[in-house]
């Protein structure tokens, strides 16, 4: 019996357009972000989908991606009480969004603590911050906020690195590239070039000043002192020092682990921490990433999706600031050695108390089957259930192969069972509705008072399971901010919270099967 029913709900009529050309511009194969957020606070998750745009073949300078035609717009779909969706893009003021830029991904966070989630859309070109006005509309505040970035941005995420109660913003950038300096690789196969063909570049850290503007803290913090080819980003406090750390998935090189020094600076320590290369010292084609505790030892682990023949990398947090490569013993050698992974989530889909793995899959190269008949371009998503730390393949509800890219996770129909939304490059998204089962569950939403309003960065423990509050992770996507815990047969739960402010809170005998909102204790 499959866990999911994969379908396209009524009203969700989005088609991603990437406009592939004979020039094999690398941007064509990288887009397709998705976000699950409740933009109107009606208690139902809505879906925001990032479109890419129109390319000419070849592109001529200056690069301008005309997205005035409605089929190239990003789209916001409001969920209706009956589970259908309504396209509210125009009404929300998001029509024509991204014009002039080629769309990639999205981050979600309430950067001004007004109780409404804001959107940050990444592009090849200029990124856009949309302030949620709280009345169903958004306003482009990029210029005022100072977060346009530039270059080629991919995944981004909101987090509070200095615990000042205001969400900061991390933006990954892939490489120094433009259409005028593009290349075609693969000889007679004429395909996309590997990342090493183009210069690396820096990521960006924006510090939230708390007045609606951001400061580029990349250099001061040390984030900008190292160049990568970054596609994915995830956050967690891996060494339990109370400050959120950053993991960055890099393509074709070593991965970055930025330790938060707690004084506004970071130190990249991936190699010495053992979270940078495979057990053989080999680099990874890192794309998506998730930073959560998969084996219920209380410490956040790192999972990175990669290309075939590399195996999705699982860096187990051993404590003491050290990680060990556990891909093979966790079962990922069998599950992923022939797959290419992008969006990724560790969520408890069967409510048994162990976080399961879901990966949106597809090769980068649309003609890979001609180059290597043993590989496939389109692939069905991977669902692997977690059996006490070892993953085993399960039926995701569809064997239909897609060009999977973004993936976001949340309980769309508020039935206590986690769902997933996956984007398909140049195609329609798929929604994976969880059939449910018998296990109990608890959904926890945080309401910060001293900390940022959504408690992003808090560590929450429920009956021995640990989650770090984040909407970031996966690949160019943003997930529901609510924390989902499967409780198995337990009908009550003990909830322990460490807020970013340092405040600690314990709730005993919390009844299962409810959406719990926990308010941070006020300063005494």
């Amino acid at each position, binding site marked *: 019996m499959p866990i999911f029913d994969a379908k396209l709900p009524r009203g969700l009529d989005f088609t991603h357009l990437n406009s592939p050309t004979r020039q094999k511009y690398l941007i064509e194969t990288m887009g397709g972000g998705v976000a699950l957020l409740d933009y109107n606070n009606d208690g139902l998750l809505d879906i925001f989908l990032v479109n890419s745009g129109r390319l000419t073949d070849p592109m001529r300078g200056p690069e301008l991606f005309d997205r005035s035609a409605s089929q190239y717009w990003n789209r916001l779909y409001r969920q209706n009480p009956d589970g259908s969706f309504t396209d509210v893009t125009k009404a929300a003021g998001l029509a024509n969004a991204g014009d002039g830029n080629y769309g990639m991904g999205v981050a979600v966070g309430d950067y001004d603590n007004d109780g409404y989630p804001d959107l940050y859309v990444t592009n090849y070109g200029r990124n856009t911050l949309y302030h949620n006005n709280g009345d169903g509309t958004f306003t482009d505040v990029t210029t005022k906020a100072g977060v346009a970035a530039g270059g080629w941005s991919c995944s981004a995420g909101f987090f509070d690195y200095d615990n000042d109660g205001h969400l900061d913003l991390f933006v990954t950038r892939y490489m120094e590239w433009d259409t005028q300096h593009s290349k075609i690789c693969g000889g007679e196969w004429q395909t996309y070039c590997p990342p*090493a063909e183009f210069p*690396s570049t*820096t990521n960006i850290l924006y510090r939230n000043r708390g007045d609606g503007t951001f400061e580029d803290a990349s250099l001061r913090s040390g984030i*900008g*002192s*190292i*160049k*990568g080819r970054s596609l994915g980003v995830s956050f967690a406090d891996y060494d339990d020092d109370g400050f959120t750390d950053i993991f960055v998935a*890099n393509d*074709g*090189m*070593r991965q*970055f682990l930025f330790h938060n020094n707690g004084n506004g600076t970071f130190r990249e320590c991936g*190699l*010495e921490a*053992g979270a940078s*290369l495979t*057990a*053989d*010292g*080999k*680099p990874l084609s890192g794309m998506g990433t998730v930073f959560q505790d998969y084996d219920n030892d209380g410490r956040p682990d790192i999972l990175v999706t990669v290309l*075939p*023949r590399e*195996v999705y990398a699982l860096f187990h947090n*051993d404590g003491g600031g*050290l990680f*060990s490569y556990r891909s*093979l*013993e*966790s*079962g990922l*050698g*069998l599950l992923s*050695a*022939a797959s290419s992974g992008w969006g990724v989530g560790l969520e408890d889909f069967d409510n048994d108390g162990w976080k399961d793995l879901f990966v949106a899959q597809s090769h980068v190269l649309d003609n890979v089957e001609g180059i*290597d*008949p*043993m590989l496939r371009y389109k692939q069905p998503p991977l669902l692997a259930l977690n059996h006490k730390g*070892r993953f085993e393949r399960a039926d995701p509800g569809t064997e239909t192969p897609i060009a999977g890219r973004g993936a976001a996770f949340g309980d769309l129909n508020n039935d206590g069972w986690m769902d997933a939304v996956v984007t398909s490059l140049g195609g329609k998204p798929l929604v994976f509705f969880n059939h449910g089962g018998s296990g109990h569950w608890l959904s926890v939403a945080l309401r910060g008072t001293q900390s940022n309003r959504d408690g992003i960065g808090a560590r929450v423990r429920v009956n021995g399971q640990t989650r770090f509050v984040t909407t970031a992770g996966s690949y160019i996507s943003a997930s529901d901010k609510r924390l989902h815990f499967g409780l198995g047969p337990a009908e009550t739960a003990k909830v322990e919270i460490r807020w970013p402010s340092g405040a600690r809170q314990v709730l005993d005998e919390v009844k299962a099967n409810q959406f719990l909102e926990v308010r941070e204790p006020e300063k005494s």
Partner: protein
Amino acid sequence: MIGAALAIWLAFQGPPSEAPQHLHAGIEADKRGQLDLAVSEFQKATQLDPTLAAAFLDLGQIYIEQRAYASAVPPLKRALALSPNIEGGHQLLGYALLAQGYAVEAIPHLEKAKVEDALGIALLEAGRLPEAVATLQKALAKHPDDPDLLYYYGRASGLVSKQVFDELEARFPDSARAHQMMAQDYAVLRDLPNAEKEFLEALRLRSQTADLHLELGELYARAQQWDKAEEQFRLETELQPGSPEAAYRLGEALVQLGKFHDARLELVRSDQLRQDMPETLYLLGKAASLDGDDALAEKSWIHVLKLEKDTSLAAQAHFGLAGLYRKQGKSAEASREMESFHRLQKPAGQTQDSQN
């Protein structure tokens, strides 16, 4: 009458005295690298004395130096006609003919000259493959570092192999070996379904054939189907318990599947069957490390480093040791190993980042 007779006599007597002079002048011109002048002198010598075999030979040789092989053939043939055992004649004519693609015609001359390298190539070009392989093998024994010879030897061997396999397919199309051969061909093309089908058919016909399970396992390993690979490698180890290769491959599959303890046993066995194999020792270290046996991991990787110094496998062993020492709290040792690891990394930027 007398005058006419004198003229006839002079005509008869004169040239023989001048032909050697032109021959000598040609040789001198050749020494100075004046090839066109040498040709002219040798031509005069042959015109003045059409029986002067040495002049024809030298003329042919100069043409060969000028890569004018077609021009070289007539004077060389003439030289050999005048003096069938003239030194270098058969060799030069054989070269000239072979260079123009007349391999069959070149062969008797090269045989007489006993020039094994050119003869081997001529035999190969003439399609006399077994003789070509044997001749080129002899030539290679004398000149083991000649890349051209290595190329032609490889090509001849490959063609012999193909010829034999074609015969196998034609005469015994339903044999296990024919299916094995077809499976190998499909495997080269990365055609997994057909290669798998042919291997399975070969196994159905003759399940006890050595290496069949190994080859099928390798096919599955290339396709990253490690569970199927494990099954085939295990069958091969049962069939050939003395095969270090089968034990190594089974160990590798078990590592991929996270069965580290079983992998260790197979890799230890492989190491015992064929000692000092760096790949086996490295993988044994990895399996031991992942299985929690740090002592065996350290011992295996140090052994790798005794065998390999500057290879990628050595880099991997240093990286493994660094992780091991870091876990044990031996920071200095870990740093030392990481330094060695970095030193051996390729500068292609694959693992290096760029500092601003």
